[in-house]
């Protein structure tokens, strides 16, 4: 029998994916934090996106089975997860608006490659390759470290968005309970590159200057990131992307040099030599800085500017709007991206550098694997994903869920003294 070709845009392929492979049980446990359905699940909004841009909001389900059955019934292109409301979202029309407010929600982050278009040379727009994925992996390393070390969160789930970005879901209780104001504070704290298109210098995180002309040190939060990013800057920006190759590119760089004499002399030198690699240009800037008198305000200012340049080209560019509001919807893990057919799989942040978006299984590939497996053994329907390349991803997801559930169990045991 010839291997069948599966079109990832065909509704029946997606339906079959939901029926055999989508881990509804796991997603239920991940949202619910325990085995018996709680408000964390029953009051949770799930929004379906159907083909033809039809959006069905405010669905909610009593348990994992109902969740699966309804999804099969609608067979949506993808679906998104919203907050836990004070009432069941499906009852929205019958409760008073004042009694229907978002209460709890994972703290979420969204990083999208399009925000890097001005600083990547390999691709643009929707396309993404292994090379520009390095921007994302630098962002994941910085944010993962910041959320764990600085904010003390432990239950972080990173999920590939299916095309050109990555999402992060933080399920710690304290993160779930954050108000919109507190979410805004985290998002701003983690936003370093700012200012619109017409602003050259986009990193302004030091306190305003002082009289002596010396710059202030970077805030501790940003300094931590700089250690990771300096290395990324050399490998990615200077070597791989060669980002200061063309006139208009290095002209942008020179606009960030505060010393007009240095900028001027470099401009003359670089105009003479068209083929100077980016790395050489950067070391010339560093050389000019070292020539300045040690301990002088001029030298300190240049040193600070170099740090700011590294940040401007490498610091994570999060889509802060997604993080700021509890009621923002975000695509559920394990959905299929409608354009690429790739499954939104969890990503291990400790091995983020090895992740290649092009190796992520597509729905067509999974269906083929499933079909091949069926030929060998027939009948058994449960746990179909065990026989496909989705397995390692679901195992990773389950390990994450066990950590969350263990914590809930320990907390419950501590409060339950009835025995």
């Amino acid at each position, binding site marked *: 029998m010839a291997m069948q070709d599966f079109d990832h845009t065909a509704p029946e392929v997606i339906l079959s994916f939901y029926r055999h492979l989508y881990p509804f049980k796991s997603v239920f446990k991940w949202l619910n934090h325990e085995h018996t359905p709680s408000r964390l699940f029953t009051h949770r909004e799930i929004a379906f996106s159907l083909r033809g*841009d039809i959006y069905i909001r405010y669905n909610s389900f009593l348990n994992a089975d109902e969740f699966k059955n309804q999804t099969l019934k609608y067979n949506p292109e993808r679906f998104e997860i919203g907050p836990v409301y004070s009432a069941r979202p499906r009852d929205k029309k019958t409760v008073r608006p*004042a009694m229907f407010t978002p209460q709890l929600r994972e703290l979420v982050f969204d990083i999208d490659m*399009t*925000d890097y*278009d*001005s600083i990547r040379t390999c691709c643009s727009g929707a396309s993404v390759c292994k090379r520009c994925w390095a921007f994302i992996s630098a962002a994941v390393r910085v944010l993962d470290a910041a959320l764990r*070390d*600085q*904010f*003390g*969160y432990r239950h972080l789930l990173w999920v590939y968005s299916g095309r050109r970005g990555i999402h992060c879901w933080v399920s710690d209780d*304290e993160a779930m309970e*954050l108000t919109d*104001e*507190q979410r*805004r*504070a*985290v998002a*701003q*704290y983690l*936003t370093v*590159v*700012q*200012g*619109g*298109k*017409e*602003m*050259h*210098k*986009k990193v302004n*995180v030091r*306190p305003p200057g*002082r*009289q002596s002309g010396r710059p*202030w*040190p*970077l*805030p*501790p*939060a*940003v*300094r931590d990131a700089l250690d990771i990013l300096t290395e990324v800057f050399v490998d990615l920006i200077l070597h791989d992307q060669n980002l200061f190759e063309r006139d208009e590119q290095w002209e942008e760089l020179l*606009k960030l040099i505060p010393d007009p004499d240095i900028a001027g002399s470099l401009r003359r030198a670089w105009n003479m030599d068209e083929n100077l690699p980016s790395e050489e240009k950067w070391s010339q800037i560093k050389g000019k800085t070292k020539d300045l008198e040690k301990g002088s305000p001029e030298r300190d200012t240049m040193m600070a500017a170099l740090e700011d340049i590294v940040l401007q080209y490498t610091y994570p*560019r999060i*889509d*802060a*709007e997604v993080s700021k509001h509890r009621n923002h919807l975000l695509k559920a893990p394990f959905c299929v991206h409608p354009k690429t057919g790739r499954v939104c799989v969890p990503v291990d942040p400790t091995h983020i550098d090895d992740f290649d978006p092009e190796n992520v299984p597509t729905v067509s590939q999974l269906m083929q694997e499933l079909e091949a497996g069926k030929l060998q053994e027939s009948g058994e329907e449960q746990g179909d994903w065990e026989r496909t390349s989705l397995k390692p991803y679901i195992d990773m997801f389950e390990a994450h869920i066990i950590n969350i559930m263990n914590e809930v169990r320990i907390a419950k045991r501590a409060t339950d003294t009835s025995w």
Partner: protein
Amino acid sequence: MFQLRTQAPEYKPDPYGKVEVAGPSDYPYRLNFYDDPPTHMVTLEEFESCAIDRLRVLGEIEACFARNRPPDERKAIVRAQCRKYLPLDPNDSLSRAQFEQRKKDHVGHFVLRLAFCRSEELRRRFIKAELELFRVRYEEELDSELESFLKTRSFGLELVDDAEKMKYAELLKDANPKNYVSFSKKVPPKDLAKERFYKVRWTRVPDLVEHRKVLVKGGWAYVPASEQSSIVFNELEAHLKTSLEATAKALPRLDEDTRIVPLLDHLSKGFLAGVPAEWDAEHSGEDIRADMIDDIARKHYPACARNLHENLRRDRHLKHFGRLQYGLFLKGLGLSIEEALLFWRRSFSKFTDDQFNKSYKYNIRHSYGLEGGRRNYPPKSCQQILTQDQPGAGDNHGCPFRHFSTDNLESALLAWYSPHGLTQDDLDEVTKIVKAGHYHVACTRVFELTHAAQGVKKGEGVSGDSVSHPNQYAAKSRELEKTHTESVKMDVDGSGVTMAL
């Protein structure tokens, strides 16, 4: 809730329990966290007058926010208003009026709680104004009194011990570098070893975290004693929020004899009247059609809208916040939903009808209150543009005075406004104002310079005020053009004057 009497207690038996008589010992401090409502007798007259005087102060605070007054100016105004309507003398003052003043402050606050608890919107505005009032008073308070006042309340603060402090010494310094450097011989730098630090969950000081003013480790914020006020303000804000919600729930059950509710209604309307309303699209006069926009943009737009318009024309697209800011501005200008859809459809010419209808139409209709929650969103004010939704790396929205680098701002202003009389020489003045951080003043100056031909003088601004809303700028500019052309017409006729006579 209140015990309210207009007559002496012996006149009729008291069904509410003991009525106390307030004494000076009830108010040992000027500042008040307003934990307990007054339980003493309050005459109806007092009830109203305390509230009205406080309302005058709060109304002025709101007006300051609405007019974008810089913090120092705002503080001075609030202080002056307080001296006039709500004076509070320190404990050692000889005026002997402390008790009466503090009682009035206390009663006024709780009456206004009743008046402003009734909707989310009123509660938000009331809390914002009350917090500002508290902040001004807090900063004025004498150190000795402040310290003992703060001791009256447990904030659940954990002092950072020396070992931990030394472990993070460098990080703590870098979080607040200004404290540890000497600015002059008179002010010695602080000694980290002597400075107190409090350890609180970061969620209690979101404002300090947002601006990276504290060290955050493992979810704890290390707050130096100099920033302790932030904990206090956040605590008061949270306290007011929960109490107002509780009051709102209790209000329908108020044992009322038809004297209070009309009074409260009256009070909450007073708050609204004292403040210039958000820019109101209804007043902007005749209809505008999509094909008139280019002409109006050239002649009457403030820089923020002009920038968005130019970008839209060049890229035939705007990102989300750009569409939102510009779309609402156009609505404020008087563009109807039909014309708006036409305008955006033509502007987004690189998209097919199908793409446009799918991706953008909903949002445009939404901003006109025709989809989803059906809220009619007002156009964004300068305050909102300057402080909310800061533009990211590829964005065009925001305020050019705030979000452009100096050279880009200068060339943009020249390109847009030199046909209206802005010259190279004016730019120095404008950029100087920008560097001082007074973006709306810079915008006002550009308005004056570009409308000099129509008789706008320096310092006159937009009808005597500085620009606080892009639609106000555009409306005034169009109004000036209209009156100007009319007067020119009359001069040409020659008969205009006699007709007017």
